[in-house]
Structure formats: structure tokens, C-alpha cells
């Protein structure tokens, strides 16, 4: 077990092991997203209250889940990088940040679009959407801070610390925004808080959520592998690898 983890922590070992998992992971991601998407769009029943606009849930919720999970993953990777000096963790954190920002944007966009048929407006200062907007700013901050450093190692450590500070603050921000929202819009209809859904409604949602997570893993692994080749380009094993593939 420890030997395996140790191997996984070194770029070379990680490159070899992740290479074995990747094709299957991509396959699972694509399959789950296709199944969930078609099921949600075509077969799941329309909501009795919202009609077909309810189907936006199948992209909004997975994107929102990922938006938050990726930030947490980034902070955990940052912690691993800072405490154990594992550069691989930082490579992964750097590679997942733009995807997290993209997911946050999609969650915001789909939420706003969903607002038109439900609330009759493109933007509502709803607690969830507002928190999501703040999360987007946090992502932009982490990405911008990393880019602002001349030294890559310095940028890596700064971004790691900021991600950790951010992750401690996210629950506080969510709590305060929810408190603020109930103060100003008492008991309004919130889009994603549904009473018990029938199975044919939530099963496709589950498929989409799992598919999004698999997609996130697959993209992060693929990009981290590229980053390994970039950063370790003078190492002998990378050279040998490129030779052999020619």
C-alpha cells in the first residue's frame, strides 16, 4: 500500500499508473454523461410545476457540485503540496483551476437561464446564485495570483495558500449569504430545493453527477500528465518515453 502510494507520488510512477487508468476513465465519463443527458432530456418526466425547464437541473446541479468540489480539491492539493512538498499535487491544482472556474460559470449561466421561466428574470440575487458568483471571483483570484508571480514555485505556493484560505471562508460566505437572503427575500421559491423526486427524475441526475466527476478526474489526469512532461522535460525517463513513442 505505502509502496504504491509512494510510486503514485513520484511523477514517473504517477505517469505510468494514470496512463493505465485513463482510457477507462474517459470511457466511463463519456458513457455516464451521455446516458444521463439523453435520459434527462428525453425520458425523464416533465416537472408538474416547472414543465420542461426543469430539465436544466441535469446540467446545473452537476456543474454546481463540481464547482465547489474542485475548489476543495484544489485546497487539499495545495495542502499536500505545502506540507509534503509533492510537486505533483501542485501540478494537479494548477490544471484543475480553469476547469473549476468553467464549471462555476456554467452553473451560474444555467441558473440564470433557468431563472427566466421560473422567476421571470435573468438574474435574481438568490442565495445559491450569489454564493456561486462569489466562488467564481475566488477562482479568478487564485488563477490570477498564480499568474502574477514571476517564479513558478512562488506562484504555486501563493495559490495553494490562497486556496486554503478560500476553502475555510467558503462555508462562512455561504452561511452569511443565506442569512442575508432570508432577511431580504423571506420564503421565496428556490430552484434546486425540491421535495422528494421520483426515481426516473433523480437517477439521470445521479448519472450526470457521477459522469461529471469522472470527466473532472479524466481531464485533470490528462492535463497533469502533460504538465509532468513539460516540467520534467529534462529528465531521462521523459526523454526515453518520447523516444519510444516516435
Amino acid at each position: 500500500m505505502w509502496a504504491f502510494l509512494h510510486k503514485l507520488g513520484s511523477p514517473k510512477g504517477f505517469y505510468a499508473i494514470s496512463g493505465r487508468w485513463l482510457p477507462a476513465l474517459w470511457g466511463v465519463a463519456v458513457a455516464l454523461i451521455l446516458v444521463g443527458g439523453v435520459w434527462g432530456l428525453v425520458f425523464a418526466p416533465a416537472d408538474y410545476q416547472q414543465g420542461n425547464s426543469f430539465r436544466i437541473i441535469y446540467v446545473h446541479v452537476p456543474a454546481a457540485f463540481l464547482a465547489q468540489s474542485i475548489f476543495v480539491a484544489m485546497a487539499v492539493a495545495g495542502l499536500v503540496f505545502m506540507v509534503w512538498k509533492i510537486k505533483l499535487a501542485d501540478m494537479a491544482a494548477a490544471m484543475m483551476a480553469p476547469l473549476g472556474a468553467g464549471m462555476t460559470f456554467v452553473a451560474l449561466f444555467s441558473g440564470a437561464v433557468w431563472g427566466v421561466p421560473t422567476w421571470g428574470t435573468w438574474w435574481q440575487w438568490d442565495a445559491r446564485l450569489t454564493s456561486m458568483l462569489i466562488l467564481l471571483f475566488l477562482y479568478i483570484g487564485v488563477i490570477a495570483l498564480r499568474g502574477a508571480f514571476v517564479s513558478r514555485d512562488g506562484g504555486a505556493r501563493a495559490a495553494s495558500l490562497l486556496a486554503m484560505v478560500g476553502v475555510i471562508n467558503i462555508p462562512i460566505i455561504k452561511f452569511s449569504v443565506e442569512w442575508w437572503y432570508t432577511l431580504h427575500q423571506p420564503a421565496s421559491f428556490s430552484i434546486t430545493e425540491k421535495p422528494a423526486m421520483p426515481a426516473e427524475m433523480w437517477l439521470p441526475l445521479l448519472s450526470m453527477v457521477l459522469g461529471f466527476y469522472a470527466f473532472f478526474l479524466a481531464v485533470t489526469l490528462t492535463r497533469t500528465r502533460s504538465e509532468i512532461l513539460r516540467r520534467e522535460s529534462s529528465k531521462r525517463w521523459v526523454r526515453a518515453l518520447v523516444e519510444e513513442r516516435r
Partner: protein
Amino acid sequence: MSLRLQARRLACERDDRWLFHDLDLEIRAGEILRVEGPNGSGKTTLLKILAGQPMEHAGEVLWNGTPLRRSRSDFLANLLYLGHAPGVKAALTPLENLAWYQALAGEPGDEASRLGALERIGLAGFEDLPAAQLSAGQQRRVALARLELTPRLLWVLDEPFTAIDRQGVAALEARLEAHAERGGGVLVTTHHELRASSGLRRLTLGEGGGGVER
């Protein structure tokens, strides 16, 4: 009081470029170690690592046989580091600057000792002027007055001769030698040729590549 600073297999990598690696060195009481090398060879970085600053590096620094991270407070209490920038606040007078440095080390200090240190370094009459009104060389002297004021075993000095006039250079050189003779240790980078003395040793960093000294 013992003085032994060792570095074992020290390596520093900056964005995939080795500034230096497999570097071993040792400073003992009575020694002046001059680190030389072209710009960008990692002199400042080496000094910062050896002064316990938070720079990423591989290898180990030992203070009196104990790794630095475990002997840090004892090490810092015996260290006087003067960096590239003199660390002198332009809006404060030389006296106020020195008072802060004394307090920072946990020493109450007294005005008479600060005045004495400033006089010996050649700043008599400038004690109460804001440092902004002093020349670059005089500001450097304010920082160097800390050598007089705070008795520390190990001096780590990054280009201490910058902007100092000829008399000042000679006096500072004599001060370094005297410190070594009294059982202190000096680690210094300089482009100025130090005159030969019994304790003087040199360490040359190689051609590390085209990086810019930070």
C-alpha cells in the same frame, strides 16, 4: 559559545534550473568565508538559505550539529544578517532604526550604546536626521552599525561594501577580521577583493546560467 554552521548536499532549484547543487560548506569560529561567483550564480540565494530564510531547497543546514529547523531560535539569536537592501526605514532616524532592531532581537538597549555605535561607524552628527536625508552609503552605515551594537556570533553579509567609501571599506574589512579573531564567523559576498588574512577562505559558485540575481 560554539559556532559551527554546516551545509550538506545543499541544492537549490529555481524553476527547473539548478542554481547550485551538491554544495557542502562549513564555517567555524575565526573564519571569514567569502562566496564569489558571477551574477546569477546564486550567491544571494545561498546566503538567504544559510541565514534561515524560507527559500525552497534540498539538503541540510546544521547549526552546531543540529538541523536548522530544530535549532532555529538559538540560531537566529546568534545571527546577524544584512541583505542586499539595507533595511533602513527612510522616515525614521538612525537612532530609531537601531532601536527597533534592538527591540526586535528582544534587547531593551539604551540610547548611549546606540549613539556609540553610530559614532564608531562614522555617523556622528547624523543621529537625529531622517534616514531619507542620508546618502546611500550613510544608510548602509546605519545598517552596519548593528554589527557594533548587537553582539552576534555569525555575520551573514550580502554585499556589505555597496556604496561605502574607501575609508569605510577599510574600516569594515578590519571589523570583519577583528570579529573573526574574537571567535566570530563571517559569511560574506562581495565584488570587492578582501585582503588576505589568516581566517579567510573562499567559495566559488559556478556558472549557473543566465539567471538574474534577485
